[in-house]
């Protein structure tokens, strides 16, 4: 049994055929080669697999690829401009050293952009609360919070 899907991934139309049980993250990583989206816990806890579906952050290890049929999906690979200029949030993570091993970073960036879209002037407390769905195994939260605040200011410009 195969399901045929049409969706938009990082601005490009994608047609794919998947088994019904294929997770969205499996489609992204294994079929589309977009390995920037990570699988940490595979149980919806850690947030490393966070992507945007129709503009909202979701955990792609918790959704079937079939559920994204017709949707607009953005992954970490879709953030930078065509000339390679980083998204302001990516630049802020780089400048603030908002990463250590880097495993959680792509999910952190995707969640951070969603939270800034909803709270453009988020306080430090709001940033910490809103990142509750993303775990950093290096416990490098302090610089991550600084990066999100700087990224928010840059996104407002």
């Amino acid at each position, binding site marked *: 049994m195969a399901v045929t899907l049409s969706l938009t991934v990082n601005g490009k139309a994608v047609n794919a055929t998947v088994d*019904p049980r294929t997770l969205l993250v499996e489609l992204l990583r294994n079929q589309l080669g977009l390995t920037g989206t990570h699988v940490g816990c595979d149980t919806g806890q850690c947030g490393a697999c966070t992507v945007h579906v129709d503009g909202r*952050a*979701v955990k792609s290890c918790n959704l079937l690829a079939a*559920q994204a049929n017709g949707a607009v999906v953005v992954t970490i690979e879709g953030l930078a401009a065509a000339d390679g200029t980083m998204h302001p949030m990516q630049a802020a993570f780089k400048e603030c050293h908002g990463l250590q091993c880097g495993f959680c970073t792509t999910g952190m960036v995707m969640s951070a952009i969603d939270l800034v879209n909803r709270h453009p002037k988020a306080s430090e407390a709001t940033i910490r609360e809103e990142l*509750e769905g993303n775990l950093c195994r290096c416990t490098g939260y302090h610089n991550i919070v600084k990066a999100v605040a700087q990224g928010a200011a840059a996104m407002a410009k």
Partner: protein
Amino acid sequence: MAVEEYWAPATLSDALERLRGGDVTILAGGTDLMPQSHAGRVTLARGLLNVRRVPELRGIEAADGGVRIGALCTMSELMRDPLVREHFGILAEACDHFASDQLRNAATLGGNVCNASPAGDTLVPLLVLDAEAELASKPDGRVQFRRVPLSAFFSGPGRTARAPDELLCAIRLPRPPAGFVGRFYKAGLRPALDISAISIGIGGVPGGRALGQARVAYGAVAPVPMRARRTEQALEGAVLDAATVERVAAIARDEVRPIDDVRASAWYRRELVFNMTRRMLGDVAHA
């Protein structure tokens, strides 16, 4: 077993037809189904029925003086909806405690209700709000609806009054009485992404240091999320001085039926029920 069929029907009638055929797993947000099936705790049926396109399962609208909430409404939609926030604040409060933002964007109210976890975050506030489940089926070629009070909907962990050929279309909430106040409390080890050790919902109309028309519900302290009728009776007309609050909280501690599990012992759950009920009633009495 492999999933052999996948359907995403666009009408309620087609969805019910698939359900009537049997051996079907219903998929809504998938946030519980996916990890459960990957962990081997749930076996997906031969047919997977994605109900996302069924229009009758969508929207939040005023109905019968209260509100009709489509089963596909996500936690994020609920906690931002003006109607829910104004009249059913205890539900919005519980949604805010639900998992994390990424899961709130995908998880649906209908999924939380049909999973029927004793610890389901929205179930306690729904019980306090006298919710009804709106179920649809198509037994003889015609779509039929019935309503079941949520207090009679849960029959055990993961078990409900929904028949295999029925689909939960919506949750209906009657308008609470004038002056109604509701409060939700969830005890977990961390504020996010935790399954509650216990949860409490208390609602009623405060006045004269009493809580009129009191409704009290508990989660994760019995095989099903439960209304605490004896505790409610003890509250009716009682002036909430310190001794009365203590007495009512002790009745609640006796009324719940918790078990020992990985999240908490039965003893600890009873102590939480007593202490937090006492604190919440004290707050309500001074509201």
